[in-house]
């Protein structure tokens, strides 16, 4: 048993461009998201009905999380935060289907997302204070704190990515152990807990921590 990404096949002969199950399921969830977005936003009208209500509910739910922490800029950050939230949410929930691995149960995925958030945080800080003003902010209140501040800033993407990775992989390992002990019926509530509940909470938390980092960099 190996919790890491499993190599399924190689593109271009052997040993070149390994394709892992993370990659396959990640692209599958992207296709699911695009298809669902196309379906939910076809024939929009002023009076929402049916499926349009679902789309508006998702957008407003994410907007209500952003607006209190970044006042007046909810719509500016909505596409970024909503992309992260929906992708991680679908990636966490797709592991409930037997035979599919979570794309978020791979450190490559989560670290990539956390690095994107890290770059956005740096950009927003520089946009708010100017490049030199933002860099000078690391040396405050006294110059001796400069290395500690820089290490604290670099620790953010690591803790951000390890949190999601550890939660998903830990749940997956527990479910695998239970399957080896009791294959029938007993794992079902565990799927409900580790797959659905923890997955949804972790997707929400990843987006909210990204908002919190951005609002810390801007204040």
């Amino acid at each position: 048993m190996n919790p890491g990404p499993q190599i399924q096949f190689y593109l271009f002969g052997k040993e070149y461009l390994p394709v892992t199950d993370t990659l396959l399921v990640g692209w599958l969830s992207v296709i699911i998201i695009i298809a669902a977005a196309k379906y939910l936003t076809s024939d929009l009208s002023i009076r929402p009905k049916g499926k349009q209500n679902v789309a508006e509910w998702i957008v407003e739910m994410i907007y209500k999380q952003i607006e209190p922490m970044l006042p007046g800029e909810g719509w500016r950050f909505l596409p970024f935060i909503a992309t992260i939230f929906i992708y991680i949410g679908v990636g966490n929930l797709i592991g409930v289907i037997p035979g599919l691995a979570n794309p978020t149960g791979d450190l490559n995925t989560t670290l990539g997302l956390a690095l994107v958030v890290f770059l956005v945080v740096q950009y927003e800080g520089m946009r708010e204070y100017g490049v030199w003003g933002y860099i000078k902010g690391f040396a405050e209140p006294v110059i001796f704190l400069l290395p500690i501040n820089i290490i604290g800033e670099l620790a953010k993407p690591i803790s951000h990515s390890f949190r999601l990775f550890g939660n998903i992989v830990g749940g997956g390992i527990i479910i695998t152990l239970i399957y080896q002990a009791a294959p029938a019926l007993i794992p079902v509530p565990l799927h409900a807990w580790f797959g659905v509940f923890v997955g949804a909470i972790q997707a929400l938390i990843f987006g909210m921590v990204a908002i919190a980092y951005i609002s810390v960099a801007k204040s």
Partner: protein
Amino acid sequence: MIDFSPEVAATIINTVSYIAAGAAMIAGMGPGIGMGFAAGKATSAVRRQPEARGPILTTMLLGQVISASTGIYSLVIAIFLIYGI
């Protein structure tokens, strides 16, 4: 310095890795206490102001997840020790 044969050395490393993984998970105590403390405070806050339930829940979850980070670090270290990634 004793010279072990490679098989014995691999066995010792495996054994010590499993013991170390178990020891790393002792860190699970701290986040448990901290998250329970935050949940208790949030419960009394909801009791005092039931209309502020939504914001209290959001703040509690954010704080709990930040304090759960240390437990997750120990879990990741334990996974790395066991599977030797």
